[in-house]
Every structure is written in C-alpha cells, then in structure tokens.
C-alpha cells in the first residue's frame, strides 16, 4: 500500500470521518490517519510545516488564512459539509421557545444563562451570535451568555442543567439524549455553516485527490448525513 | 522519688532497667552504648516502653499495665539533650523562652536573667543557634530546659563539651536547684568527679541493665563498678560537720567521727553538714604519724582490710572512728610498710586535693 494519508480535521467531525476513513481504507487499501483538533491549531500547524495531506476546517476563516498563504491547492478547495444551529434545553426542563424575529429568548432563560460556544473565537459561537443579531435578540441576551471553549462544552452546560438553554449544532444536539431540541434557527439567519476541505500544497501523496473525491462522494455523503450533517452546500465563493 | 521499671527494645539492643531513687539527684553512669540515653528518653516520654512503669514523686508518667502513657508535653520534664537540639528558626532568646508559658504561672521558678547570667550567654541572645560555638549551644540548651520550670530535670551529659571554668559555675547552680527548689534531677555523666560531687544516688548501667543502684557513697566505694581508669577517682564519701572557719589561712575545719579534716574555705555556716569525697588515689597510709609533711590531714584509724584492685594495686580500707576511708596503694608500698589488717595506721590527705569539686553541701 502507498504511504498513509494524513488528514487534519476539525474535532467535531470525528464520528463521521472515522467511519468514512474505514470505508475508504477497505475500498482503496490505503490507510487514512486523521488528526482531530481545533481548526486554529491545525491551521497553524499546517503553516509551520505539518505533513498533512488534506485539511477539513470547521469554518471558512482558517481555510482562507491558509489559502492566502499559498498553503492549499486552491483548485481543490471545496465546501464539503453544512450544518444547522439549534436551540436546545436540557431534557428534564420544561422550557419552551419558538425561534422567530424578536422572540423573547431572555424570558425563556429566566435567571439562567445561554450556553454558546465562544462568540468571538469558535465558529459555532460566531454563527450563533450572527443569528441572534439577525433575529434582533442579541442585545437582550448578550450579557447572559455562558461562552464555552467549543460546542461540546456548551452542550455539556445544557445537558448538566448548568444553563437552561443553549445554541449548538444540530449534529451535536441530535446525539445527546440529555438535551431536547426546542427549535432550529433558519439557515438564512446566519452565514452558511460550511466545513471546507482542501488538499494542501505540501501534499505529495498521490492518494490525496482520490480521498478528497471520496469525501465528496455518495458513500461519504450518506455517512455524513447519518450524523446530521448537510451535504448539499453552496460552493465556496471566490475570496470568501 | 523516682521509680523506674521498664523494658524497651531498640533493634538488637534491649533496655531492661529497674531501680528506685529517693535522692534529689540521680546520676546515670555507664559506658557508651549502655543505654543511658534510651532510659532518659523513656522517662521523658520520647520513647514508649514495651512494658513497665515510670513514676516520679507519686505521679505515674507511664504504666503499660494501667495503659497510662502521659505525652511528653504533659510531663513537665526539662530535658537537656545530648545533642543540643536548639530550634534553628528561633533566636537564642526565643529558644530560651520557648517553654516559659507552658508552665502554670505559679510554678515558674526559673528567672530569665539569672539563668542567662549563670550560663554566660547574654552576648548571644539575639543570634541564631547556628552561629554559636559548640559549648554555647550546650549552654543555651541547658537554659532552655531550666526556663521551662520543669518538675524533673533530665540532663544527658550536659557539661561534656564545656570547659572546667564554666562547669564550675553551672554545677553549683544545679546543686542549688536540687537543694532549694527541690527539683529532682537525673544526670547522665561519664565523670566520676561530677557524679560524686552532685549525685545523691547513682544508677550504674551496663549493657541495658542496671548493674547497681543506690546512694552515692555506697556505689562509689564499690570501685569494681567504676571503669578501670576512673577507679582512683572513687573512694570514701564522708558526711562531716563544719566545725570552724579559719579567716587567716582561708580554710575550714570539718569534723566527724573519723576526726578532723581541713579543706579550702567553704562558704557555709558553722554546723552545716557537708559531703567530702576523699579519692582513694589521694589518700596515703602512714605507719607513723608524719612530721614535717605538707599534708595536714592525718586521721588515726585501724587498717580494716586490704583489697586487691589489680595485680599490683590494693585498696586499703581504714576504719577511722567507725567511718571508712579508702586509700589506693601499690603492692610495693604494702610490702615495704609491712601492712597487715588490724594494725593501727594513719590516713594522710592533702588539703588541696580536697578541692572544690570534692566537697559539696549535703542535702
């Protein structure tokens, strides 16, 4: 078998990507090794010469950052996946809320806090902030946030009951029996949630293209969707 | 009254000591490794007896039978350790005052200034222990124990690293403690001179056992109990009454049934009973009353016994008016003087050899 393929991927993709990698290995006979971490850490590592072949980011910014430095094979940049934001409450609570422009999120919180991923740093947090702004409720809750290191931590705040409500990805909420999805944010309320992928310019592994194609293919698509991702995503805009 | 009957194992060594001492100062005497420190640690409560009991003046400090084990801090025992064990983080003054406040106010008999003066440590009060000389450390350790106003004092070779001059100042204070404050003292020493001067009772340790225990006079005249080199230091201990002071010559006259003895002037009132140690090696025998000899103390008596000490050395026991004086003589002298038990002889002692370390106020 040829040398193993090294994929740098956002940590939230682990479950789906592990399955896909197994599928790919049985089909192509080439081993796939995936290093999961935060997109920022991975991007910086690639910039410092990490021997990765493919990068799958949790947001566009870090892909663009690499792209601007000529570290990606621009032609291969593709929007691999999409996701949706949902409003969740802990399974045991009886809070209700319907998402709509100017809906009274503050009232639904009571004296609790709204768990989100870091609204400046983490993609899920940034999307949540954008959505709340679009819906006109940002100002009423911006002082009542509990910002977590990542979506999973935000979800944990809700599932343990620390925070009555939280905004997380649908993929995370789906799989957690401790939380209940109250409503889904309209896709238009925030910039498209996109997981871009690209072959890195440092990659000399001939298998990279095949793997990237496989990731965009049907087998992979089915697995992604089984985990709650959307595979039908808009193309990456130039300079996005 | 100190009453000890304990056993304690330490590795291969077993201490198994039983003795009683009614005296005010009990000397623990014995070779290195004979178990003196171990015994003292048991009394202080720093070692737990495997079995047995320790009682001081009726107070039970430990009794394995009655399951009593008073902690060291409750025993009110001033322990002067063989190693000084000063607190390195405290100044000398703080070390000295450490035990002060643990004694009930009414029972504090030790005076800070007195003790500091006595021990000559006034100039080091603000220093840390590590900046003291070996002897200074030892003196501070003595002061620290005294200033806790203990009800029993344990001294483990406290004067070993002190010069004679300093010893000469500290010993009388220890004597005064013993006599005036009535604080019983247990005193570990290798020195027969110290023991005979201070001790009312002596406990001789050998290999973890008590080889002999009893009043000082009785023990010190049993010379076999003393180490070979110290044997000459042993001898008779007489109790004598001060019968006169001579201002001109600076001497005092002491009297007992044995006769009159002249010693360097003592600062005690007429009639006081003092103890005089006449070292066997300082006593001579004369078959005729000596004339023109500088030795002024000539006691008439009867040669009671001649006991061989070594092959060539004899102890002559002289009965002087019912009291026994011991003279150490060579076989050569014995033969030349044709000494035989029963014959009348004179015991001759130099006045200067009855030095200040040989005379002590009796209790």
């Amino acid at each position, binding site marked *: 078998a040829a040398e193993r393929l090294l994929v740098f991927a956002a940590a939230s993709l682990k479950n789906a990507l592990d399955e896909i990698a197994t599928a790919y290995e049985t089909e192509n006979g080439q081993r796939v090794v995936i290093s999961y971490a935060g997109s920022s850490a991975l991007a910086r590592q690639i910039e410092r010469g990490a021997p990765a072949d493919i990068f799958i980011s949790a947001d566009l910014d870090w892909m663009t950052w690499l792209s601007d430095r000529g570290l990606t094979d621009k032609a291969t940049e593709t929007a691999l996946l999409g996701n949706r934001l949902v409003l969740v409450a802990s399974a045991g609570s009886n809070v209700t809320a319907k998402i709509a422009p100017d809906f009274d999120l503050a009232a639904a919180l009571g004296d609790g806090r709204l768990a989100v991923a870091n609204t400046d740093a983490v993609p899920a947090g940034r999307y949540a902030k954008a959505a709340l702004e679009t819906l006109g409720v940002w100002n009423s809750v911006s002082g009542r946030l509990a910002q977590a290191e990542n979506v999973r931590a935000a979800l944990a705040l809700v599932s343990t009951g620390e925070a009555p409500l939280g905004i997380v990805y649908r993929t995370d909420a789906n799989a957690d029996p401790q939380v209940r999805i109250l409503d889904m944010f309209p896709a238009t309320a925030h910039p498209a949630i996109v997981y871009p992928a690209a072959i890195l310019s440092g990659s000399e592994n001939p298998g990279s293209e095949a793997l990237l194609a496989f990731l965009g293919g049907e087998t992979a698509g089915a697995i992604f969707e089984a985990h709650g991702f959307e595979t039908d995503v808009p193309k990456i805009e130039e300079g996005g | 009254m100190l009453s000890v009957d304990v056993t304690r194992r330490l590795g291969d060594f077993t201490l198994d000591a039983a003795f009683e001492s009614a005296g005010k100062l009990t000397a623990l005497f014995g070779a290195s490794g004979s178990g003196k420190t171990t015994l003292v640690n048991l009394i202080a409560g720093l070692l737990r007896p495997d079995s047995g009991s320790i009682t001081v003046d009726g107070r039970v400090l430990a009794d394995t039978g009655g399951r009593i084990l008073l902690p060291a801090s409750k025993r009110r025992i001033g322990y002067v350790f063989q190693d000084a064990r000063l607190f390195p983080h405290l100044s000398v003054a703080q070390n000295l005052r*450490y035990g002060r406040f643990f004694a009930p106010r009414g029972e504090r008999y030790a005076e800070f200034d007195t003790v500091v003066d006595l021990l000559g440590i006034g100039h080091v009060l603000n220093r840390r222990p590590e900046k003291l000389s070996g002897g200074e450390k030892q003196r501070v350790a003595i002061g620290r*124990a005294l200033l806790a106003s203990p009800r029993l004092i344990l001294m483990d070779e406290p004067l070993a690293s002190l010069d004679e001059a300093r010893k000469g100042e500290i010993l009388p204070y220890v004597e005064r403690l013993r006599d005036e404050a009535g604080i019983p003292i247990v005193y570990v020493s290798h020195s027969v001179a110290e023991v005979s001067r201070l001790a009312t009772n002596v406990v001789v340790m050998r290999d973890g056992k008590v080889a002999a225990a009893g009043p000082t006079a009785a023990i010190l005249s049993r010379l076999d109990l003393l180490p070979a080199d110290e044997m000459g230091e042993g001898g008779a201990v007489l109790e004598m009454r001060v019968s006169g002071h001579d201002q001109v010559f600076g001497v005092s006259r002491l009297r007992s049934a044995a006769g009159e003895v002249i010693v360097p002037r003592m600062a005690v009132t007429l009639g006081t009973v003092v103890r005089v140690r006449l070292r066997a090696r300082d006593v001579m025998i004369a078959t005729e009353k000596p004339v023109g000899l500088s030795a002024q103390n000539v006691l008439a008596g009867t040669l009671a016994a001649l006991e061989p000490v070594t092959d060539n050395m004899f102890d002559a026991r002289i009965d002087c008016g019912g009291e026994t004086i011991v003279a150490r003589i060579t076989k050569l002298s014995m033969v030349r003087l044709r000494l035989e038990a029963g014959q009348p002889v004179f015991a001759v002692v130099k006045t200067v050899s009855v030095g200040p370390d040989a005379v002590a106020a009796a209790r």
Partner: protein
Amino acid sequence: MDWLGLGPDEWSAVKLSLRIAFWATLASLPFGILVALVLARGRFPGRILLDGLVHLPLIMPPVVTGYLLLLSFGAKGPAGAFFAEYLGVTFSFRWTGAALACALMGFPLMVRAIRLSLEAVDTKLEAAAATLGAGRLWVLATVTLPLALPGILAGMILAFAKAMGEFGATITFVSNIPGETQTLPTAIYTFLQVPGGESAAIRLTVISIAISMAALVGSELLARRIARRRGGA
C-alpha cells in the same frame, strides 16, 4: 491603563485573574497544609488513596477535571447544592468557580511542595518542643510549620503561577464570561482561536508573565530572608 492598550474586557480579565489566583492560593493553603501533613506523617491504610486523589488533577486532562467540577460543583451538582445551601457560596459561572478550578489544579503542586518540606523537618526538634511542654498543635504552629516554611512558600507560588496559567478546567467549569469568569488564559485562548489574534494574545501573555514574575520575585526574596535568618540549621 491606556499605555498597555488594554480594552475594558482585557483589563477586567487581568484583575479577575489576579483575584482568582490570590484566592485560589490562599483558600487552598490550609487544606494544602493539612493534606501534606497527613501524607507526610499519617500512617493509615487510606493514605496512598488520598495521595492518588490529590494527584488526580495533574493526571487527568484539565477538561476532564473541569467537566467533573461541572458535574459536582455546578448549580445542579450535589456539592454545588450543598455549598449554596449551607455555606452560601455558589460556584457556577462565578469567579469563585474559577478560583475553585484553579485551586484544584494547583493543589497537587502545593501539597507536594509542603509535604517535601515537612518530611525534611527534624522530628527531634518536635520532640524537644514537646518536652518543653508544647502540645501537638503548638509544636505544629511553632516548630513544624515554621521549619516547613520554604515548602509552604514554594507551594503557594506554584499554586499562584498555576492559577495564572490555568485554562482547561476553568473554561469548562465556569465558561468564559467577560468581566465575570474570563481570566487571562481564557482571554488569550479566545484571541488565539481567530486568525490575526496573536498580537493581542501575546500582549495578555506578557502581562500574565509580568504578574507571576512579580509574585515569584517576592517569594524568592522572602525565602532568601528566611534562609538568611536561619542559616544552615
């Protein structure tokens, strides 16, 4: 504080970090001493278990520690409920929680330092103090602890430094609320997550280092004074 170019949020992160590190160090000190004493002197069967327990925060990834804190000391957690009800202290989303997380993460370091010093204390000196009439607590207060001072000081500085740098457990337990639970490390982390945030992150890191260095220098001077006064023992 314009000369540092700090925004209000950053400035409050600095103040909060200081407060958290201060209280984390101070509040854990008595427990640190106690546990160190038990570990250094105790001879009971559960000793090694306690020892292991104390080391846990060092062994587990900080996120796990934070998560466990969330489960136990969070508003819904049993310990959290107990503290809130009986002692009037709540930890969740409060700086107190951050202090708790930091204290816990620094605890193994503090305990080990104190314990090392305690184990080096000559028990003969304690025995001497006892013969002078000092009871167990007095001996502890006047002999044992003063002699263990170098280790206590070292333990405090380690705990302080750790608290200044602790990130994983803090953010997991009390989140990252500017002005309330955002410490220097969580602020630094936030900056590092976005492209171009490096310079702000470096600025805050430098501030954090400066504070800890000041504490370190202070503790060293103090330690040197102690050593000078005591000398070679």
